């Protein structure tokens, strides 16, 4: 995929690369913290949207907030663009650098600074992985709620930048609902602290503006997040349906009944097949659609909730209902779902969509997506968080075939436009990045975008942070 315009690099900045690397080494003198050789830099040229690649001038991996402040001050003075990076798992090119930018990675800042079980908060350096947070507090019965599929690798920094979600967000909310405070470095090097262990902050909700700002406003180096006490137990069940529409209706039926499960995940037939092959989760292979519904509570409560869900589901005539019988089976069921993207990646290149739709339009939209993909002669596999209407159609294509590449991108754009047309949005948890940048005018008017860009101006007046992302290039002429 290569149809998105990338601004021409600034030749003068490119010419100064050696000097820039020298200065970065002066600011961050520790060994292996400035990556300047070609092989090393290659690790930073893309993220999980691998179709777009740009070799940065250098990557710097500071070990303190103060170092990041010094790096940004230097870049600000010299008008050098900066792209912040967590683990580089962004699916929308959010961490892709530009040739005339440096990458500032937070991966070496990954410590747990403080945990308070009284206040149910954890203060962390943002290079910690998402799973690392939960792993740290699990022995005491707690967890950090947002759980993106990439949680083994992705960092809290990336989660904050993209306002990441995950399968269990149906009950517990996304990143912005689970963060209480941040320490952030602005582009001019100013270090600001917002919020803390309190449940709200004084003044404007800057935290709300910052979370999900896709590395456009600053680099977050520390954060205080809420940690929650885990339920006594949790158990998933599988429900198979002969039609996608029945599965969709069943989701609406469950939500409308007054039960909010922890998660309701949807997989269509192609996805089920691939994931089963990968994870041996015992998924039924002869169904058109599969739902994974998870509930939690005490053993008795789980039985009760699963019985309630089953009662509702039966109205929609599932061909299979199977309740997990053991922790191992539960783990396998989730392994299949959480490794879905990887499993499909083994058989084909794919383009992962992230649109959100009103739940009531689910069945109809899935049919329409199939038609769109048929029209482009591309296969689609649907795996998504059904409870909150967050679709992840995976459009399969061959990355080595330029015609297919172009088709996949166009097909994806049509799918996302469809999501907006039915009352939804372009992205529910992956972010806009570079991938959906040029689709923004389908969801927002120029006035809407201008108000957003004015906030960008507040935080980063020179537009040096994560350039060429989020806002269509032509929309920026508003001033």
């Amino acid at each position: 995929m290569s149809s998105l315009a990338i601004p021409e690099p600034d030749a003068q900045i490119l010419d100064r690369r050696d000097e820039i690397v020298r200065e970065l080494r002066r600011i961050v003198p520790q060994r292996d913290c400035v990556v300047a050789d070609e092989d090393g830099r290659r690790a930073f040229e893309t993220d999980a949207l691998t179709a777009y690649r740009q070799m940065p001038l250098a990557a710097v991996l500071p070990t303190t907030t103060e170092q990041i402040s010094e790096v940004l001050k230097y870049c600000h003075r010299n008008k050098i663009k900066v792209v912040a990076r967590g683990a580089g798992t962004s699916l929308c090119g959010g961490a892709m650098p530009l040739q005339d930018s440096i990458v500032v990675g937070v991966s070496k800042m990954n410590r747990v600074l403080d945990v308070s079980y009284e206040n149910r908060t954890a203060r962390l350096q943002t290079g910690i992985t998402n799973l690392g947070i939960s792993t740290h507090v699990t022995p005491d019965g707690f967890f950090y709620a947002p759980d993106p599929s990439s949680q083994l690798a992705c960092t809290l920094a990336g989660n904050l930048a993209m306002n990441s979600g995950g399968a269990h967000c149906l009950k517990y909310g996304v990143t912005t609902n689970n963060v209480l405070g941040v320490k952030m470095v602005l582009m001019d090097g100013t270090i600001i602290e917002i919020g803390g262990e309190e449940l709200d902050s004084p003044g404007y909700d800057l935290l709300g503006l910052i979370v999900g700002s896709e590395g456009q406003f600053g680099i977050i180096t520390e954060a205080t997040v809420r940690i929650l006490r885990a339920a006594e137990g949790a158990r998933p069940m599988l429900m198979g349906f002969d039609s996608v529409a029945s599965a969709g209706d069943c989701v609406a039926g469950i939500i409308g009944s007054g039960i909010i499960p922890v998660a309701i995940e949807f997989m269509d037939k192609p996805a089920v097949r691939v994931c089963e092959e990968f994870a041996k989760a015992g998924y039924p292979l002869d169904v058109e659609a599969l739902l994974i519904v998870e509930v939690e509570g005490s053993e008795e409560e789980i039985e009760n909730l699963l019985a309630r869900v089953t009662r509702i589901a039966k109205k929609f005539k599932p061909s299979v209902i199977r309740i997990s019988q053991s922790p191992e089976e539960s783990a396998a069921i989730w392994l299949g779902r959480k490794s879905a993207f990887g499993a499909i990646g083994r058989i084909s290149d794919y383009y992962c969509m992230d649109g959100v739709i009103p739940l009531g339009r689910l069945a109809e939209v899935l049919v329409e997506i199939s038609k769109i993909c048929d029209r482009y002669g591309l296969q689609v596999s649907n795996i998504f968080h059904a409870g909150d209407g967050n679709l992840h159609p995976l459009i399969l294509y061959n990355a080595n075939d330029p015609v297919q590449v172009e088709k996949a991108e166009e097909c994806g754009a049509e799918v996302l436009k469809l999501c907006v047309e039915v009352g939804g949005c372009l992205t529910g948890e992956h972010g806009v990045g570079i991938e959906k940048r040029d689709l923004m005018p389908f969801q927002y008017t120029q006035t809407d975008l201008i108000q957003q860009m004015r906030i960008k101006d507040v935080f980063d007046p020179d537009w040096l942070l994560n350039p060429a992302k989020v806002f269509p290039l032509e929309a920026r002429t508003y001033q």
Partner: protein
Amino acid sequence: MSDVICPGDEDELSAALAQAASEKRPLEIIGGGSKRDVGRPVQTAGRLSTEKLTGVTLYEPNELVIGAMAGTPLREIEKALAKNKQHLAFEPIDLGPLLGERPGQGSIGAVFATNLSGSRRIQVGGARDHLLGVRAVNGLGELFKSGGRVMKNVTGVDLCRGLSGSWGTLAVMSEVTMKVLPCPEATRTLLLRGLTDEVAVGAMCAAMGSPFELSATAHLHASCAAAMGMEGLARKGQTVTALRLENFASFLDYRAGRLGEKLSAFGKIAELDDEQSKDFWNAMRVLKFFDGGEGAVWRISVGPNKGAKLVAALSAHLDCRAVYDWSGGLIWVEVAPSRDAGATEVRRSIAEFGGHATLIRADAPVRAGLEVFQALDPAVATLTKRIKDSFDPAGILNPGRMYSDI
């Protein structure tokens, strides 16, 4: 106070604000007016009210979403939701009675503009966490939208959160869309009596750290418990600590039992049944615990484990009484009337224990003479001013309501 502008639709709202901007004529922005006496007094010749921007614009119970024009009274939204056994889970508080107004006058727009969340905030998030979409007009008269009607949305800068808690100083909301949740089938409240603040916060934190999904925890000083006016609640001179469980009725026996065991070391546990629980927590929503009081009222947000120390420090210098909500993270304090409403001591305690404080009730001259909202760090104050300018460069929207320069 002269004319009140009451736009009937978004076009009229845009036109009114564009004109005010061109004339550099500041406006006080109000919804139902129930919170007019909070904040620094706004001294403008004109006023703009959203009272004619009313009506539910969308309600899909099966999708857990409702939308309404910003001037719609909150009580109408709640009535519509109740028909489907749904509610705004963050149980917005009603400051009206505390400020000498009738209850139930607030508008839905103001709920989000002030981000005042009730006791369930600790479990389900605050008002700002339930705002899915907003349409609003900025101080230039430009209509813009952010978010939408779906449950997840990370498309672009999150202006929904940006407008939450901005007290009408950034834009006038015309329409809001929010997430709703099913009402719990049943409610029970465990009570502990006579605990000191420190021990009570310990009990609340222990309860929140259990797997029984408490939806609220509060601790009331004895006189506050008495002011709740519930028979059998208060015992002479004893504090009351209340812990709320909500779920399917069949789950609550187990949960209440297990929680009771866990908290048995804190003393004898009493219980409020479903109806009594609802009465108690509804009274919390209108801050009934300060009924009859005439002192200044502060709202203090602090790390739960520091709350009791903060109140103890205050009590050493001020005649005050307190109610802890949010497991100790939110403290309502009433102090005896004085020239500075106790601000010096409150600010000193905040400096020592962290958190922030807002003066909620005090006479206008008192509010005009001090920082009603917590002063911001210089770097954050600079950003705040620039954000204000990005929405309202002419400074026409509620000037001075939050801070003197915004």
